[in-house]
C-alpha cells in the first residue's frame, strides 16, 4: 500500500544510507579519476600539474602491461576452470549419503574462512618450499628433485592456492543446486535408458547451468582483484604480475600515483565490461 505519503517518508528514511553509499563509492572514484590526469609523484616533487591522457597512454604502452593482462586472464581462467569442474564433482560426491556427512561438509567449507594472506603463507612455507615443504619431501621420497614451485611453476602455484580458497564457495553453491534437483527426473531418465554419464550430461549439468553461471560471475569479480596471494608469495615476479599487482607497483613501488590511477580506471572499465557481459548471461538464464 504505497501511498504518496508513505513513499516520500520511505525516501526520506533511506536518504542517509543512500548518501553514505554514494559518498563511499563516488569519493574514491572521483579521486582516482582526478589523479589519473595528473603527474603526481609524492616523493619526487609532488603534484606536477595536469598532463591530460599521458598517464593512460603510458600505462598501456609500458612493456609490463600486456604480460599483466595475460597473467590476469590465466589466473582467473585457471581458477574458474578448476573450481567449477572440481566443484561439480565434489558437490555430487557430497550429495551422496555417507557416514559423517555433516562434519565432512563443514570441513569442505573451512578453507573459505581462512584469510587469503594466511592461506598463501601456509601454502608457500608448508607445501611449496623447495627445501622443507611437504611437496619437496614427497618428491624426494620418490627420488625426484624437488620443484621450486613459486619460481618454476609460479602461475600454476598461484592458481592452485587461489583455487583451494574458492573451491568451497563453488562447491557450496553447486551442492545446494544439486539438492534442488527433483530425484524423479533422474529416475525418469534412468527408465528412459540413460546410463549414468548421459544422466549427468543431459539432466544434472543443465540443471546446474544457472548455478555455474552464478559461480563464474561472482568469482570473476573477486578473482580480478586478488592481491594478497601474489604479494606474500612471488611479489609479482616470475610472470605473476597481474593487472591489480601492476597498479599496486606503479603507485607504491614507483611512487607514481597518476600512472597507477590511470591503471585503476582501466581496471574499473574492465570489471564493468565483465560484469555487464556476465549479467546478460545470468539474466538470460534466469528467464528460461
Amino acid at each position, binding site marked *: 500500500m504505497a501511498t504518496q505519503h508513505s513513499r516520500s517518508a520511505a525516501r526520506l528514511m533511506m536518504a542517509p544510507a543512500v548518501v553514505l553509499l554514494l559518498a563511499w563509492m563516488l569519493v574514491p572514484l572521483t579521486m582516482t579519476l582526478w589523479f589519473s590526469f595528473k603527474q603526481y609523484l609524492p616523493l619526487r616533487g609532488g603534484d606536477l600539474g595536469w598532463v591530460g591522457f599521458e598517464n593512460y597512454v603510458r600505462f598501456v604502452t609500458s612493456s609490463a602491461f600486456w604480460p599483466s593482462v595475460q597473467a590476469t586472464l590465466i589466473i582467473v581462467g585457471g581458477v574458474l576452470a578448476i573450481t567449477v569442474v572440481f566443484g561439480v564433482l565434489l558437490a555430487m560426491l557430497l550429495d551422496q549419503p555417507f557416514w559423517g556427512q555433516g562434519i565432512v561438509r563443514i570441513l569442505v567449507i573451512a578453507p573459505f574462512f581462512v584469510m587469503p594472506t594466511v592461506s598463501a603463507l601456509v601454502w608457500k612455507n608448508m607445501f611449496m618450499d623447495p627445501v622443507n615443504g611437504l611437496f619437496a619431501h614427497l618428491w624426494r621420497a620418490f627420488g625426484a628433485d624437488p620443484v621450486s614451485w613459486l619460481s618454476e611453476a609460479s602461475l600454476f602455484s598461484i592458481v592452485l592456492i587461489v583455487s583451494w580458497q574458492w573451491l568451497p564457495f563453488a562447491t557450496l553453491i553447486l551442492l545446494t543446486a544439486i539438492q534442488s534437483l527433483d530425484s524423479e*527426473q533422474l*529416475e*525418469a531418465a534412468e*527408465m*528412459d*535408458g540413460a546410463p549414468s554419464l548421459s544422466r549427468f550430461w543431459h539432466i544434472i549439468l*543443465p540443471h546446474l547451468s544457472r548455478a555455474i553461471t552464478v559461480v563464474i560471475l561472482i568469482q570473476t569479480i573477486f578473482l580480478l582483484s586478488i592481491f594478497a596471494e601474489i604479494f606474500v608469495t612471488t611479489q609479482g615476479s616470475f610472470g605473476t604480475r597481474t593487472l591489480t599487482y601492476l597498479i599496486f607497483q606503479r603507485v607504491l613501488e614507483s611512487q607514481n600515483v597518476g600512472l597507477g590511477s590511470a591503471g585503476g580506471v582501466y581496471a574499473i572499465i574492465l570489471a564493468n565490461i565483465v560484469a555487464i557481459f556476465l549479467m546478460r548471461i545470468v539474466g538470460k538464464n534466469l528467464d528460461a
Partner: protein
Amino acid sequence: MGRITLDKVTKSFGEAEVIPPLDLTIEDGEFAVFVGPSGCGKSTLLRLIAGLEDVSSGQIRIDGQDATETPPAKRGLAMVFQSYALYPHMSVRKNIAFPLRMAKLDQAEIDRRVTGAADVLNLTDYLDRRPGQLSGGQRQRVAIGRAIVREPAAFLFDEPLSNLDAALRVGMRLEISELHKRLQTTMIYVTHDQVEAMTMADKIVVLRAGHIEQVGSPLELYRTPRNLFVAGFIGSPRMNFIEGETAARHDAHTIGVRPEHIAVSQTEGEWSGVVGVSEHLGSDTFFHIHDTGLAETITVRADGEVGFRHGDRIRLSPRTDAIHRFDKQGLRIG
C-alpha cells in the same frame, strides 16, 4: 507382450517391512489398478516393478523372464510419474525423443515416432515449447508421450492425475482409457481415488499395509467384497456397517448395506431415523440419518427430487438381497 508376475516379493526399508511376501500376476494387455489408503505401499510396489527399488526377496518376472536383477532401462517398462518428471531445459519434442535418443535410434525413426505420439496426444502445436510453458494437462500428456514412443511392454502410472483439477482429471481419465483400448498394452495404474479405480480398471488390486486384500474386476469387488476393508474402501459414499442385534438376526457379526441399496420413505420401512445433513448433487441426494439405533449415522442415497428436511423422522428399508454379511474377523460370509 507384457505379463508381469510377482512371486513372494518383499520389501523392507531398514527395519520396516513395507511389503510382506506378495504374489500377483498381471496379464498381458490388462489394465490393473493398485488402490489403497495413503502409505500402504502402492508406490513402493510400482517402483519395485519398475526396478527403481531393489526387492528384499522374491522374484519379478516379465513375460516369464526373471527380471529381478535387471536394471530399469532393460525391463522395457515405461513410467509416468506423479510430478511428470519432464526435463525442464528440453523442448517438448526433445523430451519425447529422449528415450529414443538414448536407444540410439536413427533420426528419421525418432521424428516419425515423435510426430506420431504428438498426433495421438494433441501435442503437435506445442512441440517446440518448454514444459514450463504448458498447462498441467499438457505436461501430463507430454509425460505419457515420452512413455508411449518407447513402445514398452507395460506402462506404469503413479497417481498421474492427482495434480490436475477435477474437470481435467475426468478428461485425462478417458484419454488414458482410450489409449489403453488402442494400444492394448499392459498398464499398471496407482491411485487412491476409487472412482478412477472403478472406471478404468480391468483388475483392481486393493492394498492395505503392503498386503493384498482382494484382487478382482471392479464389479466383483463391488458385489462381493471379501472383507470389511474392501467393502468400506470400494463404493462411494462408503458402505454402512451395522453390528449387534440387527446383524445377529442375519447370522453375522457385522452386516453392510450400501447407501444406494436402502430405500427411504415417509411411512414404511424396517428401520427409522432422523434426517441430519443432506447432500444434494442434483441427480442424487445423500441423506445422513441419525438416531437409527443401528450405527452412528446411516448414509442413504435417494433420488434428487426427494425432499426431506433436517430433523424429519423417516423410515428406511434395506434391499434384502444386497446385504453383505461379515464374521467376527471381518471376513465375508456366503
